[in-house]
């Protein structure tokens, strides 16, 4: 019997006898996530984090103090009963744990992997607070992933109420759209998802890389929707193929949820951004993920730059995804240029850690001044300035201030700009009467209602840059509002 197994049995016995003390729980070492070796994973696109073993999961679950107040739940955007599902894992009741999660979250296999738990549930965790280190909080996300993965490849199909005769259109098949579709379908409505791309899944298939979120997991969730009777129409660009007005007036849709996601990428407005070899992270990741450019010449037809030296600009999760994708596409040197310090980086700690392990060179407190090109218009370098931290700005983070005369050049052949997105203009341009804010995002109330009757919206098109879980949260709110609206609509 291994030491871990022995430790678990002792703890379970104490728990049964009612003699387990918080000090016993604090003494359990935080369980490390098994991961693919950095040297090996740089050469493939397979998932990096491999998932807990059963013993690890139960030991990690035993670290949970089962606080009466369950502060972790407060930190969860969709209010999963975290304490209860963790208790079920500790007991070895994985199906029950999964059922508890599914009361509130439709996509545990996805959220267990990509939610920023360290600023949500785990930030509130008493165990983490005790150690004054959020990294030592109970690994709620890893436990969520454990039960989701354990359920195997056949997720249960939720029950669908008898037909209401009402039709709902969901625009976009990303996380928000999937949740809104499932929840409105459960209520018995006739639901159709319209997706502009040739494959459903939204950012989970075009943006988040395979090594962080395997596409097969997303496909499983899409398959569940299909089994529930949700229709999915790809290659349908709402606003162009049909407008929202046409869907509602001519095609008989009673309600619409707009979840079209991120829009046009932001650029830095510095000289050289039109050079060949400058990508938005959206484009770079779409080519690499959705279009599988990593297999160019081996079946895939979409090319991507063959880069030796890459600079990624930005410090968020998308920047990490782009940098780590460049590593896997064979770049010899990948810089990540960010104008603040590591503390201000919006990326998840885990992603930063993985990127460093994979050899990404973090150039902090540096920012590009211009991108340099040769006579063919190809990138040959990037001129940067060094920065220091000044007074806090409106975001509460210390403002980076350039150091005069500190210019230097990095030799690179590819630059990937990952500094965020604007709003997609298509729906706004083609939907008269839809209220937008000054950035072009759709204005909604607390029920995700837009200015047009029967039209709801959520996710990035409302929030600007958000996360999978926030989009899901809005999809759920909107679906509840749609169900209520349709129940009262004649």
């Amino acid at each position, binding site marked *: 019997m291994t030491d871990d197994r022995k430790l678990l049995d002792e703890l379970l016995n104490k728990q049964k006898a009612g003699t387990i003390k918080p000090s016993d729980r604090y003494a359990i070492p935080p369980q490390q996530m098994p991961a693919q070796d950095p040297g090996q994973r740089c050469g493939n696109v397979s998932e990096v984090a491999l998932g807990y073993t059963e013993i690890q999961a139960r030991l990690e679950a035993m670290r949970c103090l089962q606080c009466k107040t369950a502060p972790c739940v407060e930190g969860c955007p969709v209010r999963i009963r975290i304490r209860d599902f963790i208790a079920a894992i500790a007991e070895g009741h994985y199906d029950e744990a999964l059922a508890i999660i599914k009361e509130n979250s439709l996509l545990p296999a996805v959220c267990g992997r990509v939610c920023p738990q360290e600023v949500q549930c785990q930030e509130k965790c008493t165990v983490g607070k005790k150690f004054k280190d959020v990294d030592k909080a109970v690994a709620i996300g890893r436990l969520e992933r454990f039960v989701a993965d354990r359920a195997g490849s056949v997720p249960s199909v939720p029950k669908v109420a008898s037909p209401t005769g009402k039709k709902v259109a969901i625009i976009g098949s990303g996380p928000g759209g999937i949740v809104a579709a499932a929840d409105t379908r459960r209520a018995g409505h006739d639901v159709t998802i319209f997706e502009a791309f*040739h494959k459903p899944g939204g950012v989970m298939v075009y943006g988040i890389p395979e090594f962080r979120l395997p596409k097969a997991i997303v496909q499983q969730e899409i398959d569940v929707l299909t089994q529930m009777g949700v229709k999915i129409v790809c290659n349908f660009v709402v606003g*162009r193929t049909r407008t929202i007005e046409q869907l509602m007036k001519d095609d008989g849709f009673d309600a619409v949820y707009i979840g079209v996601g991120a829009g046009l990428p932001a*650029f830095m407005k510095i000289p050289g951004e039109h050079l060949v*070899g400058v990508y938005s992270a*959206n*484009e770079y990741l779409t080519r690499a993920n959705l279009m599988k450019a990593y297999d160019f*010449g081996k079946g895939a037809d979409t090319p991507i730059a063959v880069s030796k030296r890459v600079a990624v600009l930005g410090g968020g999760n998308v920047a990490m995804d782009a940098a780590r994708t460049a590593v896997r596409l064979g770049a010899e040197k990948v810089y990540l240029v960010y104008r603040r310090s590591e503390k201000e980086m919006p990326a998840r700690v885990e992603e930063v850690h993985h990127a460093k392990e994979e050899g990404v060179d973090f150039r902090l407190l540096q920012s590009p001044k211009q991108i340099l090109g040769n006579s*063919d218009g190809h990138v040959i370098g990037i001129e940067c300035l060094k920065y220091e931290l000044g007074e806090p700005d409106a975001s509460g983070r210390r403002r980076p201030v350039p150091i005069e005369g500190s210019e230097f050049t990095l030799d690179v052949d590819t630059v990937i700009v990952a500094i965020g997105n604007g709003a997609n*203009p298509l729906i706004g341009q083609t939907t008269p009467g839809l209220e937008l804010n000054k950035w072009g995002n759709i204005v909604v109330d607390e029920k995700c209602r837009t200015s047009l009757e029967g039209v709801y919206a959520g996710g990035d098109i409302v929030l600007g840059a958000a996360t999978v879980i926030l989009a899901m949260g809005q999809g759920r709110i909107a679906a509840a509002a749609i169900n209520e609206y349709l129940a009262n609509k004649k």
Partner: protein
Amino acid sequence: MSHRIVSKKQLSENVFTIEVEAPLVAQARRPGQFVIVGVNDDYGERIPLTIAGADVEKGTIRLIWQRVGKSTSEMADLKEGQSLGYVAGPLGKHTHIEKFGTVVCVGGGIGNAPLLPIARGMKEAGNSLISILGARTKELLILEDEFAALSDELIVVTDDGSYGRKALVTEPLAEICGRNRKPDLAVAIGPAIMMKFCCETTRKFNVPTQVSLNAIMVDGTGMCGGCRVEVGGQTKFVCVDGPEFDGHQVNFDMLMKRLNAYRTLEQKAHEAYKQHRCRIGLGK
């Protein structure tokens, strides 16, 4: 939704046209808009192509394309009765069509295809239509009959003089702009280099000129940003802000460089595909 090819014709050595089922696109499309097509769902490239025409009754659209790389070759190898993997659209803003007076439409090579619906729209709006069609050589000239039927005046030029007048399109364009009653609008569609010189020509005569840009893009719906061009010193996106722009404001040199971004990779893929075709006995 199936996108069956209902008819296919070869217009010249490397130029093909199909009518393909896409009823919703046929219904919604207007001159100047494009579609993104894919031969297959998994590994295929997303290919943007301007819509050359549509038949709402039959639910078909007409596409014309040139075989330049692997994906366009694969498309050319499809036969009548076979289907495209997908057709998404119509995309982009449509052409602003009204009665301007006299409109001169300049097409170069494959550019005649997207130009045709615009020329037709301009004619139907009551404009007097002058068309200039150019090609490198006689065999590469396409859609002459269609333009002849529409135009009040048609000028055909070839680079080598094998058909029509031996000239570049800019020569007759300059003459027309120099007439007593200069045209009220020029529309130029063709290779970037041709559009650039058309714009330089019309600029001298102060004739407003629209061009349709064929930038490299992935999604075509305003997400990837690959199709950015510089227009009047500002970054614009061809897929949602265009594809048509004021030609006098476009930075063509930058566009041309960006169009060459994948040339080497594409040539490799095309060569490999040609060898593969030989081995499996497709084509010649």
